[in-house]
């Protein structure tokens, strides 16, 4: 729909006053960024405290329902723009406000995003899918129903492959998979902003009608860690596809977890649905807490209620959500204003009289599939010889792979040497300050320069680490400047080195005697002394040669 939103904008404002206060409700905790999720071991022991001898141990069963906001310029059924943090009700068309007489017009870009996502998970793409209305009254859903795909979704039967790290050092890669039952297209709702002080609710319809992909996963996971790894992989895939930005804190990816417990071989237990999860780490916590809680309920003779629970990030607990309307009957009905959605296998299968540029063609989208994270990791291992676990870090950390590849291109050293710098120095410092790769004060170019100086023997590798820290603190300075200012150039002058070594030998007569007596190990102590004397500005091989020559 091309209609301008201004008319409605005015109208809504005449009904509802927005205080500046409501703006603050938008503030989100952007500091909360998940990094090494595969090392976030489960905090809770997934073992019942009291074990019954004859019965097998209870296990958790986890299924996820994920709402992924489609990355598109306009909404699913209207022409209004999609944007986060725009002024309230500035992105609302007549249709989004459900003005009577308006009709939905399907956005082809959203369909393409869903098909592309379906293809990435090896789903069967339904050539024909249907839209339905799901009814319930909620202030931020102005039509009184949501248009979704209940009967025949756009994609079904896919698989998400993800990896976990096991073993004591969390370096054994274990690959698992979970079935994706379906991907359906549906509308997002608006937002209700509750102003408790003035006891009123303000409605922002900017999000109303934004396209969502709902991905329903089969309950095939067993704990928070698995779910976290699966969601992280999903995020990466969606981001690689460009179909969803995947930021949980901004609500672009919303995860509800269905959790139950049972003993293997027995029927599934009663499940609860855990909502209000706004990060991968919280999700893992929430799931593990919920599994533990359900086990304890059952072991103390209680029953698990089929209910919706909210995760409270402060306490790390899940608490029952105020049940607003009891059991909902959504009164599903086919959406009469949208004809069946057809997608075509290839250009050739588009029927005559239909403009193939106006329809969704699977072949065309398959050709657009980008390199997916799993392929990318394999390529990293094969091309650069990095360890498999390092390939995960490179791919999973936003921007890290590009950083790594840039450094590799600008140095002549083996990629395996670069990986150490990237994993230890770069990531160590970033993690310490909770920064993203894009916020690194040291550019790939600067790091490459530093590595090259080590490689050419201009500075020692221990000095380089010191220089790295200086570069971190003073990103405006070049590597050369720092090395020069702090006088860290390598001492390559043989005569100077001999003088320093002589000084050390003279100072340690006792040790020299021991070495001469045959205990060569003590030579290391002398080498350490030389290093200390020169603040690491020497090449250990050279120093060793000189010392041996002097002592022998």
């Amino acid at each position, binding site marked *: *729909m091309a*209609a301008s939103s201004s*008319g*409605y904008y005015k*109208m*809504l404002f005449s*009904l509802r006053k927005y205080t500046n206060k409501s703006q603050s409700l938008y503030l989100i905790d952007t500091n909360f960024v998940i990094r090494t999720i595969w090392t976030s071991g489960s905090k809770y022991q997934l073992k019942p405290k009291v074990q019954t001898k004859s019965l097998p141990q209870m296990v958790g069963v986890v299924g996820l329902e994920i709402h992924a906001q489609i990355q598109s310029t306009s909404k699913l059924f209207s022409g209004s723009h999609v944007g986060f943090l725009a002024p309230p009700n500035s992105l609302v068309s*007549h249709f989004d*406000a*459900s*003005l*009577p*007489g*308006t*009709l*939905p*017009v*399907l956005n082809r870009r959203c369909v393409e995003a869903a098909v592309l996502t379906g293809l990435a998970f090896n789903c069967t793409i339904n050539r024909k899918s249907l839209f339905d*209305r799901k*009814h319930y*009254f909620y*202030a931020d859903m*102005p*039509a*009184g*129903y949501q248009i979704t795909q209940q009967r025949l979704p756009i994609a079904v039967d896919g698989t998400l492959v993800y990896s976990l790290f096991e073993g004591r050092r969390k370096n054994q890669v274990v690959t698992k998979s979970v079935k994706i039952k379906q991907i359906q297209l549906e509308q997002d709702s608006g937002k209700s902003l509750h102003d408790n002080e003035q006891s009123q*609710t303000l*409605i922002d319809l900017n999000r109303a009608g934004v396209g969502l992909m709902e991905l329903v996963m089969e309950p095939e996971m067993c704990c928070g860690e698995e779910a976290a790894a699966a969601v992280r992989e999903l995020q990466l895939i969606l981001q690689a596809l460009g179909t969803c930005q995947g930021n949980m804190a901004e609500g672009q990816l919303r995860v509800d977890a269905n959790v139950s417990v049972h003993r293997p071989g027995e029927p599934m237990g009663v499940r609860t649905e855990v909502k209000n999860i706004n990060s991968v780490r919280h999700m893992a916590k929430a799931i593990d807490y919920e599994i533990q809680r359900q086990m304890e309920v059952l072991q103390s003779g209680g029953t698990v209620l089929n209910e919706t629970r909210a995760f409270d990030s402060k306490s790390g607990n899940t608490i029952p959500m105020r049940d607003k309307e009891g059991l909902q*009957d*959504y*009164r*599903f*009905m086919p959406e*009469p*204003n*949208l*004809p069946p959605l057809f997608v075509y296998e290839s250009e050739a299968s588009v029927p005559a009289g239909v403009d193939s540029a106006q329809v969704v063609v699977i072949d065309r989208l398959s050709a657009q599939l980008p390199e997916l994270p799993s392929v990318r990791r394999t390529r990293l291992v094969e091309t650069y010889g990095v360890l498999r676990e390092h390939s995960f870090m490179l791919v999973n950390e936003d921007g890290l792979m590009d950083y790594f590849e840039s450094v590799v291109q600008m140095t002549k050293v083996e990629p395996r040497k670069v990986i150490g710098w990237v994993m230890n120095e770069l990531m160590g410092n970033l993690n310490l300050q909770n920064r993203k790769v894009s916020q690194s004060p040291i550019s790939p170019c600067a790091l490459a320069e530093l590595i090259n100086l080590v490689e050419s023997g201009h500075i020692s590798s221990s000095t380089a680490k010191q220089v790295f820290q200086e570069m971190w603190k003073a990103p405006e300075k070049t590597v050369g400047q720092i090395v020069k200012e702090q006088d860290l150039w390598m001492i390559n002058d043989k005569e100077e080195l001999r003088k320093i070594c002589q000084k050390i030998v003279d100072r340690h007569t006792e040790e020299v005697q021991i070495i001469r007596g045959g205990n060569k190990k003590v030579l290391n102590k002398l080498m350490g002394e030389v290093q200390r004397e020169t603040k690491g500005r020497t090449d250990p091989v050279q120093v060793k040669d000189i010392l041996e020559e002097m002592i022998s």
Partner: protein
Amino acid sequence: MSASSAANAMLGLSIREVSQALRDGRVSATELCKKCINQIQRTHYLNAYITITEEMAMEQAQRADNRLRTGKPLGPLDGIPFSVKDNFCTDNIKTTCASNMLKGYVPPFNATVVQKLLDQGAVLVGKTNLDEFAMGSGSADGVFGPVRNPWSYATQYREQSKEDPDSDWAITGGSSGGSAAAVASLSSFLALGSDTGGSTRNPGSLCGVVALKPSYGLLSRHGLIPLVNSMDVPGIMTRSVHDAATVLRILQGRDERDSTTVQAPDTPPSLPEHFDIRDICVGIPKEYHAPGLSKDILAQWSRVADMFEQAGARVQEVSLPHTQHSIVCYHVLCCCEVASNMARFDGLEYGHRSAVDSSTDAMYATTRHEGFNNVVRRRILSGNYFLLKSNYERYFVKAQQTRRLITEDFKTIFRSGIDVLLTPTTLSDAARYSDFIQEDNRTRSAQEDVFTQPVNMAGLPAVTVPTALSPRGLPIGLQLIGQTLQDWKLLTVAHWIEKQLNFPLVCFHEDSNKRELDHSVRERTHTVGL
């Protein structure tokens, strides 16, 4: 010639004729517009209009005159006054659906069909009365009161009546009664109605005007406040088939704002003047000999069938066995979509909002209670019941299956070589209002829609053509049903009937026009709301 009959002379013309008069300079668009406005005032007691857009209309007419003077009219509708049922959105003009829920609601956009007419230079004189949210078949269930049939103020009816004109008058039928009355009473040359189960054809028939329900998808529903999305079609009301064809040609076609619209088939500029009726095969569905069919209607039906036969057309009895289930099937589907479509009226974004604000739920409940009449509320309740998970298969799914069978019946007949079906439009001529309100809305709708509704189920085009006056002096119309997207062929046949019949224009009984202006009507007649 009196002043009023002189006005009639111009107002009683067809669009084709008055368009020629405009081009010839025999009348200006502003004069014509003023005449229509005066006619609206003179016939205010009919209660045909909810809003009169005089100021805006005069401005539009002025612009039309500028074009006509320079010999550059936009088309056959330039300068032609028209009216629109008040369930089509009109930009900056109140659109009420004759409901408290939308009293004072001013849409920010025009319905596509309205926009198309405006783009052709047609002059919007007002928004017409209806049953609340188009739910009804009498135009007697709107918040602005019932619409009166112009023919019950014509000489023949009044001379037979021994009662006061304010107590003895006939309904217009509905739900587009205001539009039908507007065209019949000569205050609009063209009016838009909407047709979900017969809402354009029923009042068209009872008011003696041509009323076309086009094929589903041929006209855009964008801006039509929905009743049943899968059956709603904008309807066209005129005083001649030729005019209806002219308007159809302008309104038809795909609209990117309505995904259910289709590309219009190629349409010649006007209906053929010479057309051989002997090529046509007319079907007479035997199931349409329904209980309650009045002898006057039956007589007209036979008369026209004979006329076809005598002119050499093939006339053949056909069977539509599932038609009998149409009423109950329609009831279920209609209620379900109504329940769904009405969910948006919650008092938040637009429309009526109750003063009760103890909680959001309480606000919803009282808003909807205050905003909707009993008819609407009952349909919402039934619809929600039919859609419950446990009932869905039993009601909605069954009704959809039945709908397919009804559609198949028509397809079978048309495949067998039938070109059009000839049927009654209504069971009888227009009921007296006092009789009509004895029954409740649901019963009346069920009775009245029996001939019209199956067409909506199947998405077919149908047109009612006025045939004669009943002994009471009220119009009788007959319906022609065509194949999907063969609207033009349908109108060609309708045009042929029209030429054989020579149906008269209304001629008001002299007392009728001397009635005093009703204040409640006057208060409503300002151009723009808010």
